C-alpha cells in the first residue's frame, strides 16, 4: 500500500483563514444590517425639541415660584393666627380681674353678634351656627387642604408611562 505524505508548514494560515472568512462575512452582514436600520430625524427635530424643553422649564420655574408663594402665604396666615390667639389669651388673663374692661366689652359684642347671626340663620335656613357645626366646617376645610397636598405624592407616575 502506497503511503501519501503531506507536509504542512503553516497551520495558522489555513485554520485562521477558515475562521476568518466566516467572521468577515459576519462583520460585513453586521455592518450592512446597521446601515439598513439606520435613520436620522429631520434637521429641525432637535431645535423643536429644545424649544419644548425650555418652555417646560419656564413653566416648571413658574410652578415652583407659585408654590413657594402659596406656601409662604398660608404660613403667614397660620403664624398670624397663632400669634393673635396667644396675644388675645395674654390680654384676657391680664384683664380678667378688671370688670367692664375694653377687651371684655369687645368680646361681649362679638358674642352678641354671633348669637344674632345664629338666630337669623335658624329662622332662614333652619340650622344654628354652634360650636359643633363650626367644628364640622373646620374638619372639612382641613380634609380638602390635606387632599390637595397629598395628591402630589399619591398619584406618582411610573417611568416611561
Amino acid at each position: 500500500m502506497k503511503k501519501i505524505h503531506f507536509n504542512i508548514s503553516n497551520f495558522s494560515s489555513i485554520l485562521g483563514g477558515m475562521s476568518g472568512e466566516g467572521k468577515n462575512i459576519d462583520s460585513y452582514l453586521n455592518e450592512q444590517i446597521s446601515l439598513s436600520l439606520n435613520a436620522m430625524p429631520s434637521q429641525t427635530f432637535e431645535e423643536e425639541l429644545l424649544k419644548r424643553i425650555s418652555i417646560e422649564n419656564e413653566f416648571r420655574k413658574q410652578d415652583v415660584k407659585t408654590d413657594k408663594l402659596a406656601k409662604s402665604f398660608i404660613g403667614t396666615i397660620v403664624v398670624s393666627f397663632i400669634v393673635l390667639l396667644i396675644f388675645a389669651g395674654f390680654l384676657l388673663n391680664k384683664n380678667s380681674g378688671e370688670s367692664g374692661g375694653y377687651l371684655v366689652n369687645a368680646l361681649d359684642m362679638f358674642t352678641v353678634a354671633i348669637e344674632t347671626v345664629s338666630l337669623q340663620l335658624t329662622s332662614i335656613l333652619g340650622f344654628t351656627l354652634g360650636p359643633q357645626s363650626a367644628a364640622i366646617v373646620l374638619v372639612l376645610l382641613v380634609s380638602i387642604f390635606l387632599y390637595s397636598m397629598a395628591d402630589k405624592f399619591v398619584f406618582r407616575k411610573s417611568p416611561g408611562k
Partner: protein
Amino acid sequence: MEYSKRISENIKNGDTAGFSDIVREFSGKAFALTLRILGNKEDAEDSLQEAFMRLYRAIVSGQFEERSKLSTYFYTIVYNTAVDHYKKIKAKRFSIISIDVEGDNYEEGDDLNKSYSESHHSTGSSYSDKATRENEVSKIIGSYITSLPEQYSVILTMFYINDLSHEEISNILKLPIGTVKNRIFRAKSKLREIILKKYSEEEILQYV
C-alpha cells in the same frame, strides 16, 4: 454611571444645555427604533419628542434613579411611548403584540420565509463592476430588512443600532433572553442564506 449622575444633577438644577447633550447623543439611534415601530417619519418624530419630554420630566422629578443606566432607561421610554403612539393612531391591532404571542403551529423563523420574496430582487442582470455588485447586495439587504416583521426588526434595531445587550432587550420587551438571541440569529441566518444563494463567499469577501 458617573456621566448619568452628573448630567441628571445639572438638568435638575435647570441646565437645559445638559439635556441637549443627551438629545444629540440619542436622537439618531432612538429615531431608528421609533421609525421601525411606527413605520412613518412624522409619527416617529412626534413619538420621539414625547419620549424625550418624558425622560426630561423623569430626571427633573427625580424619578430616574442615577444608579440605573441612562441608555436602557431611555430606550424603555422610547419603546413604550412608540407603542402607546401606535395604539393611539391605529385602530388595528399592533403587530408588535406578536412579539410574545405564538400560535400552536408557530415556529420561530416561519414569518421570515413569508415576509421576504426573493423574486423581486432577481434582476438577472450581469454585473459589470464591483461597485455595481456591491450596491446590489446592499439593496438586497436593505429590502430584506424593510420586509422583516416587527418582532425581528425591533430586536435587530435594539441590538445593532441602540447597542443594547441581549439581557437589556429581553428586559425592555419582556421576552425570554433565549427568544431574543434566537430571533437575532434567525434573522441573520436567513439574510446570509439569501445573499449566499446569489453570490459566492469569495464575491462577498471582496466588499469587506
